C-alpha cells in the first residue's frame, strides 16, 4: 500500500508525539540547544530550506540526524514539520489498490503471449 511504503521511507523522519512538552523546546529563531554532542548545529532557516528533503529521506544520515535533533527541540520548526508530515501522509493515502491484480496479470500475460512472448 502506498501509505505503508511512504511511511517506511519516512520512518527515520518521524518524531514521537508529545515530546515537545517533555523536552521543553526552545524558542525559534536560532540554534536549538541540547543537541547530541558532535551533531552539526543547524539553524531554523536551514531546517526550513531542507524540510522537504528531510521528510523525503533524501539527505545524508548526518544531515538527517542534525535536522531531526533541531526539530525535536525547536518550537518554531516542529509545528511546520508536523503540518508537512500530515500533508504528505494525506497525499500518499490517495494511492489506489487494484481490485483484482491477478486478473490484470493474466490479461497482460495473454496480451504479451499474443505478441510473441514465450512462456518461461
Amino acid at each position, binding site marked *: 500500500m502506498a501509505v505503508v511504503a*511512504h511511511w517506511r521511507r519516512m520512518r527515520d523522519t518521524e518524531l514521537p508525539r*508529545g515530546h*515537545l512538552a517533555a523536552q521543553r523546546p526552545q524558542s525559534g529563531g536560532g540554534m536549538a540547544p541540547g543537541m547530541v554532542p558532535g551533531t552539526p548545529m543547524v539553524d531554523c532557516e536551514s531546517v526550513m530550506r531542507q524540510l522537504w528533503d528531510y521528510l523525503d529521506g533524501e539527505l545524508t544520515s548526518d544531515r538527517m540526524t542534525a535536522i531531526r535533533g533541531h526539530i525535536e527541540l525547536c518550537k*518554531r520548526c516542529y509545528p511546520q514539520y508536523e*503540518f508537512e508530515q500530515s500533508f504528505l501522509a494525506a*497525499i500518499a493515502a*490517495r494511492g489506489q489498490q487494484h481490485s483484482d491484480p491477478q486478473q490484470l496479470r493474466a490479461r497482460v500475460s495473454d496480451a504479451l503471449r499474443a505478441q510473441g512472448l514465450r512462456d518461461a
Partner: protein
Amino acid sequence: MPATVMRDGTKQVRDRQFRSEALRWLPEVTRYAMSLERDEANADDLVQETFLKAYEAWGTYTPGTECRGWLFTICRHTFYRRRRREERQVSYDDPDLEALAAAAVHTSARQGGYADLFTRFDLSDAIDRAIANLPDAFRDVVLLIDVNDQSYEAAAAALGVPIGTVRSRLFRARRLLQEALIAHARDSGLVPASATVQGGSADEPTNAP
C-alpha cells in the same frame, strides 16, 4: 548451427530477460497507472499497453539499468498520448525558495486555524481534484514521489530531467496543493480549529512566533 535455431535461442533469452526484469514490476506499474487514470478499467488498458510497448522496445533497454523507471516513462508517455495531451513546459523557481515558501503556507494555515487540516478532515476528494488540476509537469512528480513512493533520483530518471528540476517542481507542486486545499477548507466552511478549541493542544507550543 542453423540461423533459425540461433534466432530462437536469442528470442528465448530475450523473453526470459523480459519476464524477469520487466514483468516483476507489474504491481508498481499498476499502482502508477491507477494514480494517472483514476478509473480502474482505463488503468488496466494503460498497464497492458505499457507492457506491450515495453516488450516491443525491449531491444532498446539496457539490462541491469533502472527497469522500473523505464517502464514508468513508457506508462507516462502512453498516458499522455492516450489523452492527446502535450506535456507542457513549465517554469520553475529555485527549490530553496520554494522550500521557504512552504513556511509561509504553513503560517497562513495556522493563522486561519487550519494547522491540523490534514489530520482533522477527510480531504480525499479535494486532494484528487487538486492533484488533477496541477499542471502536468507538477502532477508527474507528485504522482511519482508522493503517491508512488519513488526517490528523487528514480523520478528524475523516469521523467528524463535533472534531480534539481524534480526538487523544484515537487516543492512547487506541494505548495500549490496546500494552497488549493486550504482554499477548499475555507470555501467549504470547514470549521477552523481556532473556532472550536480554546488554546492549543498539549503538544503544540503556545508561544510560537
